[in-house]
């Protein structure tokens, strides 16, 4: 797991989540290598659970 992925995981564990959490994840998504991108999508799922339902 790359450092960018680990940093993004830590970000999603913050409470409360930062207001621009999705934008910050977008930044990390661009940085993680191709083989990690599919796994990375779960971090959006974790955030959606708390931040944006509808």
């Amino acid at each position, binding site marked *: 797991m790359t450092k960018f992925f680990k940093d993004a995981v830590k970000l999603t564990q913050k409470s409360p989540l930062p207001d621009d959490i*999705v934008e910050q994840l977008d930044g990390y998504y661009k*940085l993680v290598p191709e083989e990690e991108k599919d796994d990375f*999508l*779960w971090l959006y*799922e974790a955030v959606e659970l708390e*931040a944006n*339902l*509808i």
Partner: protein
Amino acid sequence: MPTDIEHGDNLARLAARHQERLAESLVTLENRIVDLMANAPLQDGNLFDLEWAISARNEIRQLVDAEYLPQIDSILREYPEVAAGAESMLKTYGSFTQIDPKIITQLQTLEFQGFQDIGAEYVDAIAKEVYQNTLTGRSFADSVNTIKQVAGGEMARYAKQQVHDSLMQFDAAINVSIGKEAGAKKWKYVGSLIETSRPFCREHEGEVMDDEKIEQLWGTSWAGKAAGDPFIVRGGYNCGHRFRPVFDEEADTEEETVEAVAEPEATIPSGAPKLLDKKVALSQISSFASKANKRVAEASDPTGYIAKNPDYFPVRFTPYAMKRKDNLIDLGNDQFGKIIDKGMSAETLSLLDSGLKEIEGISKKFKTPKIRGVVPAGGKRTTMAMGDGMLSVNGSYWNPIAKQAYVPRDKLLESTKASRLALNKADEYYETIQEEYQSAMDAIFVKFPNYRNDQSYRGTPEWALLQQKSVQMADAGKAADKARKKWVKDRKLSEVEPTSAYVRGGNISDRPWSAKQYYSDPADKFKSTLFHEFGHTVHQEYWRQASAAGHYATPIERYLRQLFYVNGKKGARNKDLFFPTGYSEAKPVEWWAENFSLYNMGRKDLVDTKLLALMDEMVKSKGRIKVFDGWNFETGEYA
């Protein structure tokens, strides 16, 4: 002793392994360059320090020396075995002398120098990008992305092609050297035909030619032809053919049939439910959601969602969409009970319909309301998400996977083959245009040797031609990239993803990131994710009156926190628990959802012992459980 075809196939496999090894090194190199960028001084998030940019060049060179060249060295050290293989193959056809080991060493040295040149170009290209981004004060994230494009793009592609061509050219040089030493005057053009073989190679495959014929043929041109000695460059870039020496007795009698490379067997995924017409699927799911959107005032009724106010359904979470200033209570009431299928294919809807039917049974077992509505993920990256009984589904993510569940694999392989051929054609055209561009450039160098100081070449026909080729080259490059992306996408669709074999107590490095990676069937991947999402509904809705009374976390969520963290307080995870996936370590509710998915997918062997007991108890219990493991699930505290 191997035949010439067997020897060629061995080489093709070795070339593929070499390319894989180099690709791994290049990925590591790319990551280390990105790590280097992470140390760049920033001002308001932008690069600014030119001194750092200049010093970065030296560090980039050191990274290339550390990651790229040792791999090349290791690859080239295998070349003597290639020479031995060529000698052994030639013995099948006659008596030949052995190659002088000095020649092998010299060829290795020459090849290494060629790769060193590529490495130097690589350093130049990256260092230039770093400097330019710093000069223009580009943002850190943008800079990292453009540098990744340079590092992993054209240069990496070129290096990988060179690894293939270097091996084939080395083998060709050995063949020809031994043949000429033995006095061969005739040569057989041999190699396996594959779907991407050039028309030139297809036409001349198996043909015996003399020196004169070869010279004559190389006077003509074809797409992808490379400059150089015909015995060495053969059909051109990426060619796997070679000239094998033959003598008259063999040339007169030998007739061999060359078979095309066999395609993998076609298989159709078996776990997919019946494919429904989109309207039928939508109608069925809508009816399901409408029934599931049951509002009850009685908090303990497990079949419906709890309403604080008889007129409204609650929206529980901190709404990110507050930014849009939406009235979420109204929006929730408007969307609950509906299915918005925008962006979802018939295949995705068919999987969803089947999954929701299974959830109907699971919701009864877990005494939790069903999913009461589906919305599209709407431009978000999440693949699925859940909250307040509403499921969001990302059609653009799931549609290709759902397609895999319904389209026979042989059809997907055909598409991959077609897009590979289109890519081959696009690459060959790009190579041709690059050569034409280089020729146009050379023409300017010859006619205007003083071009650096004198710009009189501008406005000449040579300059116009160069401009034209430059535009064509850019277009051809874009077309080749587009064709490559399509091929990568099609190939991904036609590939069967290996299933994780991780078991409890196994090597943690084999553990997958998410539960869906325990399945290779695309329909199972969808279902596993859907069950994960419904797991969230369970922890959000089970005995929900506690949160309806004002608490944020439901009793089950508070219990999960107690288990997940040491002393029940956010911080270190409890090491006694079992985490079946990487994602299950992220948060208590994701630990629950991953385990819940595995439980309902029949993989109880991968469920944490404590959660397994809880889930079994929830299923066994007639109503919702009140006390379990000393925890009061109604009030959310230790009993």
